[in-house]
């Protein structure tokens, strides 16, 4: 067996503690073998090694990767079936087979190219972090399973997670985290029956089971809440610098890190939107806006514009193209480059389906004026025609 294969175990024990005398001898022997080994040893134990690796790893979108693997597995099964049929036929008609095989492989190549090249619309997908730190990847293909963890059972259902149904009493709060990547959406039913529809690039931290007087969750990004009414246990959504306090109601919160304002849009019921010593009370059809300076205001809005996403629709009314592209790029997971700043100010009114091809969205946006979109891979260049 190759010597190097045990080195990671030894090095991890140096970092974590617990290297035995005997192991230290073996590690020393390895270090002594070459200058490079000694150098590597110092590289690993020096300050910042773990941090550097964490950064390296965090650039990879693991949920998307897994969805692609599932897709590729299916394609392989299909193309293998074709090949099997061909090989059975091979005994009978050899010359024909050669042609068929050639066509067969051609087809397979085209399919895998499509996966890589075409800009896909978003889909149901998420990453779930359980209280003990283990992760699960969730998607359309993976439904009807059940996870058990301390204090709760979780059902993975057609469109989301469900924490209902466990009646056991827990004293301690355990948190789970649901992360939706760019190009994803997912929904979750919390232990009190509250339903949360999560949009792309968003994260919700919530207790597996609500304990105590308050029902508190933590959000970044966008989500639509349908809160189960319970006057004795107010429901709180904590954002980075503000809080939304509710009794029983439906509303949308948009709190993306890369946007200047945080918006809470109320559909039904009543909520208080608080930040520092500022506070606005919202009635149905009203929207509270918190800007970067900490100022807060409220205005009347058409709530449909802010909640249509959960029905699978983009709805815009006199919306600036810059804002539109922010929303669209999260869902289709594309990067936007502005060749003329002036195009950011173009406005658009209309409805588009979220599960349409990206090209269709572009066609609609191009129809309205003299804006031109050029698509190169995952990058969209926008300029004046």
């Amino acid at each position, binding site marked *: *067996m*190759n010597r*190097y*294969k*045990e*080195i*990671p*175990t030894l*090095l*991890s*024990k140096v*970092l*974590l*503690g*617990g290297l*035995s005398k005997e*192991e230290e001898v073996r590690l020393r022997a390895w270090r002594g073998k070459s200058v*490079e080994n000694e150098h*590597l040893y110092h*590289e*690993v134990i*020096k*300050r*910042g*090694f*773990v*941090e550097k*690796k964490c950064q*390296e*790893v*965090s*650039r*990879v979108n*693991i949920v998307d*990767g*897994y969805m*692609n*693997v599932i897709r*590729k*597995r299916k394609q*392989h099964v299909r193309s293998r079936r074709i090949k099997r049929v061909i090989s059975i036929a091979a005994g009978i008609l050899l010359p024909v087979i050669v042609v068929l095989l050639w066509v067969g492989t051609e087809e397979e190549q085209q399919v895998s190219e499509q996966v*890589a090249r075409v800009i896909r619309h978003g889909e149901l997908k998420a990453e779930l972090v359980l209280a*003990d*730190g*283990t*992760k*699960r*990847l969730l998607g359309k293909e*993976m439904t009807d399973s059940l996870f058990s963890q301390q204090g709760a059972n979780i059902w993975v259902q057609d469109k989301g997670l469900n924490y209902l149904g466990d009646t056991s009493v827990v004293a301690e709060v355990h948190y789970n985290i649901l992360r939706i990547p760019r190009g994803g959406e997912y929904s979750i039913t919390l232990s009190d029956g509250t339903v949360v529809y999560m949009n792309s690039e968003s994260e919700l931290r919530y207790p597996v089971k609500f304990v105590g007087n308050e029902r508190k969750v933590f959000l970044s990004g966008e989500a639509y809440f349908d809160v189960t009414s319970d006057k004795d246990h107010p429901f709180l959504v904590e954002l980075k610098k503000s809080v939304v306090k509710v009794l029983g109601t439906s509303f949308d919160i948009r709190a993306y890190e890369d946007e200047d304002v945080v918006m809470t849009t109320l559909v039904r019921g009543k909520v208080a939107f608080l930040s520092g010593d500022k506070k606005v009370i919202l009635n149905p059809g009203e929207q509270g806006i918190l800007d970067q300076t900490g100022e807060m205001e409220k205005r009347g809005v058409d709530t449909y514009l802010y909640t249509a996403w959960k029905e699978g629709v983009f709805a815009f009314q006199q919306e600036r193209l810059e804002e539109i592209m922010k929303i669209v790029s999260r869902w289709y997971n594309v990067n936007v480059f502005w060749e003329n700043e002036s195009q950011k100010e173009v406005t658009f009114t209309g409805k588009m389906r979220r599960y349409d091809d990206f090209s269709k969205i572009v066609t609609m946006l191009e129809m309205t004026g003299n804006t031109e979109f050029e698509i190169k*891979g*995952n990058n969209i260049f926008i300029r004046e025609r």
Partner: protein
Amino acid sequence: MIEDNSLNMSGLMKGDERAFQSLFIDYYPLLVSSAMKYVDEQEAAEDIVQDVFVKVWEGRENLQGIDNLSAYLYQMVRFKSFNYLRAEKVRQQATKSFTEELEFFEINEYIENETFRIVMHALEDLPAGSRNVFSRAIQGYSAKEIAEELGIAVETVKKQKQIARRMLKEKLGNLFTLFFSVAC
């Protein structure tokens, strides 16, 4: 795989989706960063690693014969990366013959990645409080620095560190025996 308590090899061989997913979560990001040493482009690297996992899934029934799955994964990534480069004709030297064993710089990278992976695994098993403290401690931050960052008392930091050490000692002790009973 010996140093891996998370890997459910028999589950994987039987086609248990959850075992496959755990393996994926565990290795995918590190393998992508490894593939990027060969192919530069992240999209291509991800594609290569995804294909490796498809291959593992399809050949799951024959995994028994592999003594060290993690080294095997790195070798597969290397193999597919070379194939990709050859197909893309990106570099002339890529056509040099492929050997199963990793080369020197690849071994170093393998060691770095595997060390990191094992460390992260060990940390995952700690309770949240001591995990927060200990993950900083192993990066060389002092108890005082950690206390300031987390807004807790220095004494608490020390106590959490002790808890972590005790728990890890038990766990790592197991790792040691396993390693020798299986690998040597």
